[in-house]
């Protein structure tokens, strides 16, 4: 009786174990470590040799192979992951190849050290990748699973190859878009260039798009040269590197009162305004230096007008300090001296009430609804690049809508707006745009 009961328990357990298999994976080893790939991605496995070498490809591309009439690329996964490959191997030797069928019917063969077995996997037993598996970029890892005392790293092959694939597609379309070949980075530095783009996004949430691509490409060349002479890595290692890279991106007088040259340039660009009131919108105002500069310059240019400045930022800490800004004497630019726009206080100088009252500082997310009247001037210097490309588009079209017909949009010195919609006005180091008349 007992044994029957035990048997049925054992059976139940086996059944449960079988039921827990959500998918199967093909396992293989690379330099003694165990890896797995979802079997649904695997078309077949085989032993192959004599791959046809293709010139001018990345080192990890072993060549192409004729698989029953179909030409497929062969990738050496060890080289791709920068794992050591023994030198003895020559092209004659048989290699273990896993042939993958990915999304869009993309067929790719990958070379591994040894194909092991097929293993059932339950989703609940997969553990998230841990940074300790350092040799392979963590985003290519779906998870880790333990089976019979061995740890398998499950690779996300779709991700590994779709990214490579899209990078090349991108370059292809870029190459078509630009007629001047000078602007396309040379092939051997593409991976680093793309890596830099990725890391800028991660460390500084700086998004590369048409808005700033010209600058990023120039800066990358400069950066690469400098890194070579200093003997350091071109790749950005952390937030510090990313900020260092972006240092020359920021416009003049970021985080301080605008200087006299900038003020003069702006005065030249500001149109006569017969309406009697001036509306200024200043998204991304930060600690408010830009906003006060603007309000003061507007007051100098239009002494009789009613001036209203709407300044907003998503950084609560910075924008909270903005209304009570106090300047030290040496921080005051010369065009504000003796204008009576500043008054002395116990701890320094602050703007007079009529200037302060003309500004409304708001804690606001520009991606939400922007409830502002039509503006004569919009100042958004070095703001757009810190949004994702789709959001950049959205904000730009919002600017297009919110700007009066003869209004000025002032952007950062390294930002380029689309020619079809914006007409460039440049005055020294000040970059401004007007709406292109439709």
């Amino acid at each position, binding site marked *: 009786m007992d044994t029957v009961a035990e048997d049925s328990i054992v059976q139940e357990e086996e059944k449960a174990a079988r039921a827990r298999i959500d998918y199967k994976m093909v396992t293989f080893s690379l330099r003694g470590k165990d890896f797995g790939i979802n079997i649904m991605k695997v078309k077949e496995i085989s032993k192959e040799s004599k791959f046809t070498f293709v010139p001018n490809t990345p080192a990890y591309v072993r060549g192409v192979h004729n698989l029953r009439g179909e030409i497929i690329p062969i990738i050496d996964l060890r080289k791709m992951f920068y794992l050591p490959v023994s030198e003895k191997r020559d092209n004659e030797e048989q290699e273990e190849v896993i042939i993958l069928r990915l999304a869009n019917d993309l067929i790719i063969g990958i070379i591994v050290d040894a194909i092991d077995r097929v293993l059932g996997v339950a989703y609940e037993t997969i553990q998230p990748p841990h940074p300790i598996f350092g040799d392979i970029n963590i985003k290519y890892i779906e998870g880790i699973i333990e089976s019979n005392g061995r740890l398998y790293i499950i690779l996300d092959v779709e991700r590994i190859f779709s990214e490579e694939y899209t990078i090349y597609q991108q370059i292809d379309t870029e190459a078509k878009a630009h007629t001047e070949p000078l602007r396309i980075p040379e092939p051997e530095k593409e991976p680093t260039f793309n890596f830099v783009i990725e890391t800028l996004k991660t460390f500084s949430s700086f998004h590369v798009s048409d808005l700033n691509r010209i600058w990023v490409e120039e800066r990358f060349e400069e950066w690469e040269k400098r890194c070579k002479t200093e003997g350091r890595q071109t790749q950005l290692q952390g937030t510090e590197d990313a900020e260092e890279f972006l240092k020359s991106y920021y416009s003049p007088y970021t985080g301080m009162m605008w200087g006299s040259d900038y003020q003069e340039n702006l005065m030249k660009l500001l149109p006569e305004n017969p309406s009697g009131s001036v509306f200024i919108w200043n998204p991304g105002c930060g600690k408010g230096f830009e906003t006060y500069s603007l309000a003061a310059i507007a007051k100098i240019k239009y002494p009789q007008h009613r001036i209203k400045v709407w300044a907003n930022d998503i950084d609560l800490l910075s924008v909270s300090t903005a*209304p009570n800004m106090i300047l030290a004497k040496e921080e005051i630019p010369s065009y504000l001296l003796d204008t009576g726009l500043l008054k002395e206080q116990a701890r320094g100088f602050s703007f007079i009430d009529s200037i302060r009252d003309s500004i409304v500082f708001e*804690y606001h997310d520009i991606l939400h609804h922007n409830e502002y009247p039509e503006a004569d001037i919009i100042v958004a210097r070095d703001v757009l690049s810190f949004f994702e490309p789709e959001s950049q588009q959205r904000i730009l079209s919002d600017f297009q809508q919110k700007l009066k017909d003869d209004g000025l949009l002032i952007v950062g010195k390294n930002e380029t707006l689309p020619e079809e919609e914006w007409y460039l006005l440049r005055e020294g180091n000040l970059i401004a745009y007007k709406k292109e008349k439709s």
Partner: protein
Amino acid sequence: MRVEYINPFVEAAFSVLKEVLGTEISRGELYLKSSSQPMLGTTAIVGLTGDVEGRVLFDMSLQTALAIASTMNGEEFKSFDDLAKATISELANMITAQAVTKLHDLGFKFDLTPPALFTGENMEVLDTDVEALIVPIDMPLGKIEINVAVRERN
């Protein structure tokens, strides 16, 4: 949301809750929300008008509301009856009124509407064209989210 308005609301919520409940309270990270937001179930609303227009919501779960009402009245509430409802409305009124007093001192003129209370499940609130500032407040009795949506009259 104008930055000068933020602190009065945060401070008022803090000091009123501390005083009437006599418990530890801590403030979570402030953030902004637009589009429609789910509510926790028991919500008092106080309208603002004057230099600005908008409203303040005090949003909590039914358990939290009962616990707060019990503490404020010094008796155990089993159901959310009229007295409990009046207590929550009054709490909302006290916090908003204190915030508005602080704003008056800064030179902003606001008036309040009488508080109203909503209860129900799966409620959502949508503010057209106004983004809301969320002040999350954690207490041993539960969590209150203070949701301020005001805009300047142009």
